[in-house]
């Protein structure tokens, strides 16, 4: 094996390790919500992903998530909260609210219909 080949292979292994870390192992920090009039409210921008995609909420308080889809790609036209049985169509450029009150600590994942875009609520 030539030097170039060795270097290329070492770089290749490095890239693979980085992919594993960046996409699978990385732990995202959550964003805490602001509470107004007793409602925990967060605006989530939808554009190639959910921003923020990890939202920290408190249990037993009403939550209102305001989704704003800012792209025309059909992949993100729906947001699904499978574990709480809610879903919504997100027309481009409009704000759509998802409201509920969590009663248990844990995680509530949400995603697009195809599971390509993901986010979660961390209930504390």
């Amino acid at each position, binding site marked *: 094996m030539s030097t170039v080949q060795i270097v*290329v*292979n070492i770089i290749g292994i490095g890239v693979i390790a980085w992919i594993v870390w960046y996409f699978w192992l990385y732990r995202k920090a959550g964003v805490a919500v602001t509470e107004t009039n007793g409602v925990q409210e967060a605006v989530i921008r939808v554009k*190639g992903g959910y921003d923020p995609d990890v939202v920290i909420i408190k249990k037993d308080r*009403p939550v209102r998530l305001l989704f704003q889809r800012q792209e025309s790609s059909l992949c993100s036209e729906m947001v699904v909260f*499978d574990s709480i049985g809610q879903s919504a*169509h997100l027309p481009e450029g409009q704000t759509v609210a998802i409201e509920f009150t969590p009663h248990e600590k844990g995680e509530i994942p949400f995603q697009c*219909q195809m599971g390509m875009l993901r986010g979660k609520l961390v209930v504390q």
Partner: protein
Amino acid sequence: MKQHMQTYDPALHHAGEKQTAVVPPTIGDNALAAAGAPVALDLAVRGMHCASCATTVASALRQVPGVQTAEVNVATEIAHVRYLPASTDVAALTSAVAAVGYSAAERGDPSDDVDEQTAAHQLEYRNLMRKFWYAASISVVILLVAFPEIRWLYAPNLFWIEPSAAIVRGLWAASGVLALTVMAYSGRHFYTGLWFAFKHHAADMNTLIALGTAAAWLYSTVAVLAPQVFPMGASTMPFYDVTTVVIALVVLGQAIEARAKGQSSQAIRKLLGLQAKTARILRDGVEVEVSVESVLVSDIVVVRPGEKIPVDGIIVAGHSALDESMITGESLPVDKQIGDAVIGATMNTTGSFKFEATKVGKDTALAQIVKLVQDAMGTKPPIARLVDRVSYYFVPAVMITAVLSFMVWFTFGPSPALAFAIVTAVTVLIIACPCAIGMAVPLALVGGVGKAAEHGVLIRSGEALQTASTLQTIVLDKTGTITKGKPELTDTEADAGFDADRVLYYAASADRPSEHPLAQAIVQAANSRGLAPAEPSDFTALPGLGVAATVDGKRVLVGNGRLMEREGIDIGSLQTTVARLQSEGKTAMFVAVGKLAAGVVAVADTVKKDSVAAIRVMQSMGLEVIMLTGDNERTAQAIARQVGITRVLSEVLPEDKAHQVHLLKGEGKQVGMVGDGINDAPALVEANVGFAIGTGADVAIEAADITLVGGSLKGVAYAIEVSRATMRNAKQNLFGAFIYNTLGIPVAAGILYPLLGILLSPIMAAAAMAISSITVVSNANRLRSFKAKSFREATL
């Protein structure tokens, strides 16, 4: 008196700015508006959390001058306001709500959402097609440059001239710039998508296409500008055609997908299309035609022959037969009298009637159905959860495969190794199709749930659908599910010297004052045969025995054997008739006229007309059908024999029904329970799938996984058939997508090259990718033309 008619002209209504729920009464009749006719408006109110909030909002609205009534529902978050347009307007109303700390907006028509969605799909389709045409035309130019061998096709005169290396390099550079414009315009969304996903530590379809096309472009550009960096030096060829053709093909695939997806929401659009646009209502005794949104609860709605019923309500005058097939799936028109419920969106046939509106706007059966179907389409069957886990790992895994493939080709591949390494890595990235995997289940679900809704079968969730497809045992409640749930006259037997009609006439006349359901059934049967029962005198109800009365001067007795015995009447051969009728599960009563036994009338809860066919279809589908009832063994067996059920659980107390279902599950069966949703609610919840027989207007039955709006058992068979077909479709999609990816990716990586010398070009990979996702969409769309056995056979 001259009737003031207001006409509603949708063209006028929509001519100005969009004003959803208000129909100005001034259109068509200025005189009426000047007299101050109020208009109705629904406001969507946000921020209410309790009943007292609703009170605050309502009183704020009432204080606005010109507002006549304001009712606020905290659950639906809607304020129904009736106001005088001469005195106030929508802006004043919303600001009054805002002043007390809540926000309000005019409530949209439910069809807006779907129209908007359809428009968005069409817009996206056109947008993608423009991108495709640009990428495709540039691709043609670049291909001509890339393959100079074919220039005799378009420039035969130049064929003998070999262009100089400088000219070739110049043409390549121009191709590179053109390819860049394709990336910037047609492929822009791949690169922005990659970036947005990347920021979220995520990777998707865009990531793969963006990386693949960008890698091809970068390699080509280096090959043109600085070929000396590559081992093979000046002989390095660019392949800008890969970048542009791949973008063109993938964008074309997305466009076709966008259009097909638009079609998948057709079921909802079809449902919304059923909604009447206008209603004719009575206001202050005057018939006015208004938009359906301004009909309020307790308005009296006038329906003429052939008209659509605008909202839900109860008939207060007149009668007719209604075609309810669009809501219930029931093909025959249903007779409706005063006191009967009518459902919005159904069609009046020939009669005229007036009804009082009981549910409007979001509360109508149709609106609830649409909501239920939309919600169900957003859920995931358990099978999709597996897919979710796969798709989470999928894209990064493809990227890793691409890197590995690069490393192997670079190290062990034939010369030029770098070119092979780049091409295989790019091909791996391009051929992988996460979309096909991701769409497999949701598209099938949308198709199946929509199809079911068209037949009056409302499947609440993906989970219910998947479980319904695996059911083995169906438990049917008897009363109201298999049978109509109310007694009807079944037999009239006359003794010598009487005829059947006379017997029925006497029995009905004697029974007329009685409120007992059995007596009512006899009176009703006599009425419907035109026998006109007489008004009896000396009516006496004899508890546990029957009734006695004087009809046309004769003493008439209707009752059981003990009554006849007490009155000393010889029943003779009628005894055997009664015994036979009882063995058939019927309630038989002797009729005596004067001192003579005249005959026997029998009453029973009869089987719904399509129960037999529906049960036969279920059995032919391999389902075990069991009857569950609180009735005695004899009645239960009689009904079971009529409908062809062999396993009967009778004399089950209402509170034990759930336990019986539990026991059946204990036999290792997947059990579906069919009942009425109220009394049977615990059993429905206990079953793997609970089917509620709908009562027409009330479709959102909490305990049920599946609601049968029409109340026919055909719906159960249909629900299971459509669930099975949907799951089959979803599995086909998934199987296809997985096979495609697990075969396609290794081939793209060049696994066949050492043995067979087969290596895919990235352009082939792009075509394969586009075709695979289009195949999934088209396969899912096949569900729209699904025809169920249950409806073909059971429609008599």
